[in-house]
């Protein structure tokens, strides 16, 4: 990777890919319910919208400690960037200029834009490293990873932090060699915003240190000329400028800075353990299964993408060990380090696994860059097997690209709106995964699938037991008219008329409570994905007194 300018055509293609992805994401939100975390982030964003109002009415007083503490306090365990963007998007694109009729879509737009940004950067970096077709395959492999496609819809931080890791790495690679000030400032600012997105960014300087060590080692072993200064200015920019930008862009840190930074670290380094089912067992305390990240990657990323990535990895490692060109070195090692660092915490059996694949989502862009390289390698070999005909030479790349992308694309679309319930054919698809005892759902968002049944069955003003759906997420469904405005979400089963149940083994006790209170074990509606029950709805039988279990 060097710092050459991109052709205008490539910039246009990157923009088209990003815009296309954004349109697909925006047009497929309607059946997707709101996750627990989305409910919490929207709650934060609403507080920040009020802060925006205070800036308008109170001017600089809005930046005083009392104001900052009040409006930035909700969920201060996570930094401000995305929450501010959610708030700004909602305020501007739903309330002021009603581009989005549903408030949820406006809150989700920044998350979707981050997914699109990742697609664009993947194309550009992939194109620079291995040509347009490799870049396109890398970008689309990422876009159509079923779990990425799901997370890319959300007003959450996970795809955003993956995009920021990718973007910062990309800018770092471009700034590595020289002393080009705009690029150096860009990478420092990008890292600051990366820090302000999610705490995964803490690992990035360690990744860069590892990167530098490997690059210098390979240069020395292969007797290649050193790329750039011994310690690149880009690294200095990351380390110096990054924290400064974080401080500037996260007002919560303006006061009691050291205490709050320490508390931020402490919260995530000592995070609670939540329940997660894996291979038929519910894990809720250490030791966590060390195979979790690997098995879940195998079970949720399309096999063809993984095989391409494996081929790309082979080619990349071979070039590092035996190659003679140095131009690839900085970028290639960044890709490998991006994957290794993202997966590293799950080598420890003390690391929580409650979030499933989102924990190591930051590895997937780099995995897809390797897949792009694997594709180019495959293309070059398949080309030698075919007769040399001009039309065939022209058609082959597109045909091969379709062959490796159509499966992931169909799987991603088919996964919608169940998202997290999706598993690849390698583990037998959704039914196979259920039989293996892999987690079927979490975050309570499949309420979105059952919303029409709730609307049809509930009496006016009924109380609906929302189970794992956060009340804030339920309120979003209500505000957007997806569930009737007269229906009240409740966490009290007693007094409810309809009860949701989102299946996880440890949650079953809630279903048993419903059986006792409602006097029935028969759900009235079900969100089943490929024949596998994911979430279901109970209705209190009419005129039945709340009875015992007999």
């Amino acid at each position: 990777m060097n710092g050459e300018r991109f052709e205008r055509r490539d910039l246009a293609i990157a923009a088209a890919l990003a815009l296309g992805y954004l349109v697909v994401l925006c047009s497929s939100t309607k059946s997707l319910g709101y996750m627990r975390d989305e409910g919490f982030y929207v709650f934060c964003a609403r507080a920040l919208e009020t802060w925006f109002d205070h800036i308008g009415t109170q001017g600089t007083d809005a930046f005083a400690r009392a104001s900052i503490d009040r409006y930035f306090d909700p969920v201060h365990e996570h930094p401000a960037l995305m929450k501010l963007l959610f708030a700004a998007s909602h305020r501007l694109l739903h309330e002021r200029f009603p581009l989005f009729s549903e408030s949820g879509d406006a809150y989700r737009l920044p998350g979707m834009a981050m997914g699109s940004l990742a697609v664009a950067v993947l194309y550009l970096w992939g194109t620079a490293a291995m040509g347009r077709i490799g870049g396109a395959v890398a970008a689309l492999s990422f876009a159509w990873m079923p779990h990425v496609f799901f997370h890319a819809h959300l007003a959450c931080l996970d795809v955003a932090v993956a995009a920021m890791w990718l973007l910062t790495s990309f800018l770092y690679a471009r700034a590595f060699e020289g002393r080009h000030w705009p690029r150096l400032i860009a990478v420092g600012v990008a890292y600051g915003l990366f820090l302000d997105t999610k705490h995964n960014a803490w690992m990035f300087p360690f990744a860069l240190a590892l990167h530098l060590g490997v690059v210098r080692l390979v240069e020395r072993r292969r007797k290649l000329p050193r790329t750039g200064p011994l310690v690149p200015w880009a690294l200095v920019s990351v380390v110096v400028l990054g924290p400064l930008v974080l401080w500037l862009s996260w007002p919560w840190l303006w006061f009691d800075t050291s205490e709050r930074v320490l508390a931020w670290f402490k919260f995530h380094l000592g995070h609670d353990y939540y329940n997660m089912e894996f291979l038929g067992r519910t894990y809720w305390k250490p030791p966590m299964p060390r195979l979790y990240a690997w098995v879940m990657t195998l079970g949720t990323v399309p096999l063809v993408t993984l095989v391409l990535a494996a081929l790309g990895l082979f080619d990349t490692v071979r070039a590092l060990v035996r190659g003679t060109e140095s131009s690839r070195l900085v970028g290639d090692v960044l890709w490998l380090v991006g994957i290794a660092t993202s997966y590293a915490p799950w080598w420890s059996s003390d690391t929580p696994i409650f979030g499933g694949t989102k924990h190591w989502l930051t590895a997937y862009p780099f995995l897809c860059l390797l897949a792009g390289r694997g594709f180019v390698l495959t293309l070059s070999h398949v080309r030698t097997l075919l007769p040399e005909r001009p039309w065939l030479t022209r058609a082959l790349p597109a045909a091969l690209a379709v062959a490796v992308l159509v499966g992931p694309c169909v799987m991603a679309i088919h996964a919608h709106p169940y998202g997290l319930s999706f598993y690849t054919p390698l583990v037998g698809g959704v039914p196979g995964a259920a039989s293996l005892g892999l987690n079927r759902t979490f975050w309570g968002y499949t309420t979105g699938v059952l919303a029409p049944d709730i609307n049809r069955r509930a009496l006016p003003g009924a109380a609906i037991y929302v189970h794992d759906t956060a009340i804030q997420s339920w309120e979003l469904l209500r505000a957007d008219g997806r569930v009737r405005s007269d229906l009240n979400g409740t966490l009290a089963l007693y007094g409810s008329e309809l009860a949701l149940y989102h299946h996880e083994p440890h949650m079953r006790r809630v279903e048993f409570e419903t059986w006792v209170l409602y006097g029935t074990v028969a759900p009235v509606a079900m969100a089943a994905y490929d024949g596998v029950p994911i979430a279901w709805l109970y209705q209190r039988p009419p005129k039945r007194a709340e009875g015992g279990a007999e």
Partner: protein
Amino acid sequence: MADWPPRVRRLRYLWVLVPVLGLLELATNVVLSRRAPGVEAWRALRGTVLAMKRSGEPVVVAPEWAEPLARLALGDRAFPLGELARADDRTVPGLLEIAELGARSPAVRDWPVVSEKREGPFVLRVLRNPKPLQSRYRFVDHVRPGELSVALVRGDTEHPCEFKEHLPATAGGLHGQVAFPSERFQCAGGEMFVGVTLIDDQDYRPRRCIWAHPPQAGTLRLRFSAVPLGAHLHGLAGLSYFLFRDGVGPPITLSASSGGRAFGTVSHRDESGFSGFELATPGLSGQTAEVDFEIRAEGGYRRDFCFAVEAVE
């Protein structure tokens, strides 16, 4: 590569497998996504299942994850709560297994198949329990006045717990109490009652049992009158596994006796889940007698104990 032996050179065709794999994965995904029967297929099974279902012989679904669909389609008649949340299979004479995707229920895989019938995507098997225990009395079915009296016993003092029929049925959600039924023997103070409810066992499966929270001091006594006894009392007991799997609470003891004659005492630790015990009732088989269960726990704060016992031959 040109100078490689032909056999090795042929390996280059393996590169074609990459795009083929992409298309194969797509096709497999389409096939797998349509394999498991949906709710309409389950609904079509309703008449057949209800005709085959015998009282006291539970319906089991294989694979187990499909059971909620079966409950939706077949309704409460196919899944009476007492059968669905049974303590175990030992006293069950037989089962009706509904299987899809070639699955079998692991727990009853070895039971003899009496009949087997294919119906659409399903296989219906009537299974016979090879070694059923004969149940003479299932205590959980007799938690009502006239058959059971409940009292808190502190020293020589007894405080009877009164039977109430219309108390509010409540539940605590994921981290709260299990469902408290509206019909229960309510003791003085707080959560002290005896009634029938469900708890989650160590596999997070439902178990129907008699909720009997011991007092912080003294004993909770349940006295069942006119119990036809067999050779043993076969029981299972535990607390909600999700709530108490940390195992930090003090042990709970359950003692069984009849007319001052002790059958034995069982000590239960939280982390054991819903675990079994066997108490002999020597010389009483075939007789009808009063049976007492006494439950106690030292420092019994939140000792959400629940047990299911049967008098068996």
